[in-house]
């Protein structure tokens, strides 16, 4: 029974990893940028939520109304002021600029908030659970978080395939030069994509902060989890990304069940296994 419980917990955790991955995958899809600072931005969002909840005396969930737009604005500005300058044919500048950004965010958070670990208090909902019978229960909060992850990914999917903005994203990804001939300003389109990515990051950061303790140094591991979910799921498919996140969550949960020291390792090993036997990922995009 505890194994079933572990798998259920893993699935719910995987929703969060799917969120980490969706933001990463979105900007890679639109502008071929791999944002090394992605994990640190998730942590930045968590700290923003911490400040907002403390300053306004509101709960973490209402704080999303402020944190999500704030992160989107940060994303837009970051892209316009910094990242657009780094994009080009050469792989190194965007990689190293986001790497530098990661170090700056980490140490900036350390400077302001110290290395103490923090947590967002969500109140009664934290301990609420739905009994499933047979000693099995699902926490309301993890369930809510999973639901939000699924909804966010469905929203991104809808936006990509059903809206003019999604069309602009795909056109710019296909051929940025011709997209300019259509009246699309690449710099603006890229900045909108980054804004959207960081809006998703904000969701991920707040739910992360409610679920576990966080400190300024945990960003890189979140980047790696998101990245692993992308590769396990298969590049270019949002639902695949969610599935990759769920598999990663289940692997970690089963690993932890065997030995607490094996939690993270089990996830990494699943990733390496997928890389060895199916490097295109388990659910690559089929649409041609």
């Amino acid at each position, binding site marked *: 029974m505890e194994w079933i419980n572990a798998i259920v917990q893993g699935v719910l955790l995987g929703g969060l990893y799917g969120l980490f991955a969706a933001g990463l995958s979105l900007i890679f899809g639109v502008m071929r940028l791999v944002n090394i600072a992605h994990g640190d931005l998730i942590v930045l969002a968590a700290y923003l939520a911490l400040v907002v909840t403390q300053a306004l005396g509101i709960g973490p969930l209402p704080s999303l109304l402020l944190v999500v737009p704030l992160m989107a604005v940060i994303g837009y500005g970051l892209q316009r002021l910094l990242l657009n300058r780094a994009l080009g044919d050469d792989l190194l500048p965007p990689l190293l600029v986001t790497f530098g950004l990661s170090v700056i965010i980490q140490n900036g958070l350390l400077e302001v908030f110290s290395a103490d670990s923090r947590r967002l208090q969500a109140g009664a909902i934290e301990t609420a659970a739905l009994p499933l019978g047979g000693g099995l229960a699902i926490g309301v909060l993890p369930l809510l978080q999973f639901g939000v992850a699924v909804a966010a990914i469905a929203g991104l999917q809808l936006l990509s395939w059903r809206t003019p903005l999604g069309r*602009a994203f*795909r056109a710019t990804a*296909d051929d940025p030069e*011709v*997209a300019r001939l*259509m*009246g699309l300003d690449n710099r603006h389109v890229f900045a909108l994509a980054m804004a959207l990515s960081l809006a998703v990051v904000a969701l991920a950061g707040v739910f992360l902060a409610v679920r576990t303790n966080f400190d300024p140094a945990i960003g890189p591991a979140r980047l790696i989890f998101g990245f692993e979910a992308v590769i396990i799921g298969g590049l270019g498919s949002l639902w695949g990304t969610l599935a990759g996140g769920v598999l990663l969550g289940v692997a970690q949960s089963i690993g932890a069940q065997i030995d607490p020291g094996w939690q993270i390792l089990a996830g990494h090993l699943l990733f390496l296994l997928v890389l060895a036997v199916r490097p295109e990922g388990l659910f690559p995009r089929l649409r041609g």
Partner: protein
Amino acid sequence: MPEAPLLELRALDAFYGDFQALFGISMAVAPGQVAAVIGANGAGKSTLLKTIAGLIAAPSRDAVVFGGEPIGGLPAHGVVGRGIALVPEGRRLFSSLSVEENLLIGGRTRRPGPWSLEAVYGFFPVLAERRHTPATALSGGQQQMVAIGRALMSNPRLLLCDEISLGLAPVIVRDIYARLPALAAQGTAMVIVEQDVSQALAAADHVFCLREGRVVLEDTARALTREAVAAAYFGV
């Protein structure tokens, strides 16, 4: 030229980094006129169209004047909003977009004018049947129709066509060229770049021949002789 020109180039230079590709190009195109630009490979024909469209920055604002407004050096997304559309060489349709989405994105500037999805489907009826197909799954000729339709969706006053016959069967090239006079009759001016000189001469009112980035011959299509074109083309 009696009528005020729609497009005027004044001693236009263009550069790729340190390499100069165009030298002092001057030309004028009137509303509704079809101008052909011919020349050998590497003469600067595509560069000329890209510079007009804003993909390559013109060195000064006054070097390109469109409808009386200096637009040299404006970015491409600013140029299309003023009514210049480019059909790029090799069609370059968006591969993850359907036929209809390619057309819709062409119309996203929302310039007023006669062209709409329905009008494009009326102009190229075969596209209406394939509207939900991924654009790059179409045949070459149909893809070229999408590329032209995508450009028309922005309701251009000037349409720039780069090598629209490239890689297409002669019967399809004739079919596409047969539709161009209808566009000109609506008042849309065109600058077409063509390798196929006889095709270009047949379609155009006015012909410019480029060699090594310079205009070496300019005349009305009617007045040009085959010999004059050959001499200008090869520089003999």
